[in-house]
C-alpha cells in the first residue's frame, strides 16, 4: 500500500467504516509507516477541531447584518404579524 492510498483510507475512515480488508491493509501500513501514523493522528485532530469550530459561529469573527437587511427583515416580520400570521 502506498502512502497516497493509506491517506485516502485514513480520511475515509473519518466518514464511514472501512471494509475489513481495507482496515487490515491500513493497519499493516501504519505499523511500518511513521509518516502515515502521524498523518492519521493529525488529520483526525484537525477534523475534530473543525467540527467543533463549525458548531460555534463565534470562531469566524465578527459579522453583522447590514442596516438595510435589518430593516428589510423587520419589515417582513411586521407585515407577516400584521396579517395575523
Amino acid at each position: 500500500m502506498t502512502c497516497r492510498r493509506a491517506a485516502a483510507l485514513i480520511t475515509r475512515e473519518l466518514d464511514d467504516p472501512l471494509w475489513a480488508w481495507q482496515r487490515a491493509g491500513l493497519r499493516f501500513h501504519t505499523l511500518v509507516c511513521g509518516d502515515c501514523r502521524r498523518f492519521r493522528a493529525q488529520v483526525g485532530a484537525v477534523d475534530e477541531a473543525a467540527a467543533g469550530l463549525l458548531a460555534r459561529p463565534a470562531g469566524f469573527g465578527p459579522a453583522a447584518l447590514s442596516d438595510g437587511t435589518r430593516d428589510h427583515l423587520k419589515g417582513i416580520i411586521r407585515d407577516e404579524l400584521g396579517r395575523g400570521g
Partner: protein
Amino acid sequence: MTRPATAAALDPATWVDAHGDYLYRFALARVRDPDAAEEVVQEALLAALAARHRFAGRSSERSWLTAILNRKVADWLRAAVRRRARERAKSDRWADGLFTPSGKWKVRPGDWSADDPGREMTRAAFRQTLAGCLDKLPARLRQAFVLRHLDEQPAGAVCQAVGATPTNLWVMLHRARLRLWRCLTINWFGDDPAGRRGGGER
C-alpha cells in the same frame, strides 16, 4: 397585549434586534457567502413565523430559531453540493503534489507537538488559524466538508441527500481534509517535515 399561550415565550417583533446578528454569523460561518447567508436567515425567520404557534417553549427562543436556521443552511448546502457533486471528480493537481509519483509523501508529515495535539486545539489563536484555513478551501470542498459536519450523518446518508456517488463525496472530503491539514501544518505548526529534523535540533 395578549398572545396565544403557546407562543408566550416568542416575540417575533424583537427577533431581528435580539438574534439577527447571531443568526447571520451562524449562517455566514457555514455558507460563507454574505448574500446567501442573508437569504437563509430570511427564510429561517419566515419559517419560524409560520411555525411560531407550534413553539412548545422547551428551548429558548434563540435555540429554537437556530435549529430552524440550521435546517435552512443544510438545505442550501445540499443544493450547492448537489450542483457540483454530479460532475465527475477532476484530478486535483494540488493534492497529487503532496505525493511522489510512487505514492510516498513528498513532504513528510512533521511533528506537530510533543504533547497532546488536542490541547493545542483549544486555543483561541488556533481556532482563528483553523477558521482561516477553512475559508481558504475551494468553495465546493468547503461546502461538502461543512455539510458533512452539519448533518452529523454518515457520509453515505449525505451522498444520498446530494445525489452524489460515495466516491465523489469521499474525494471531495479527502481533498478538503488534506488541504486543511496542510494549511495548519504550514500556518500553525510550522513546516517542519520529519525528514529535516533528523539533521539535528536547534
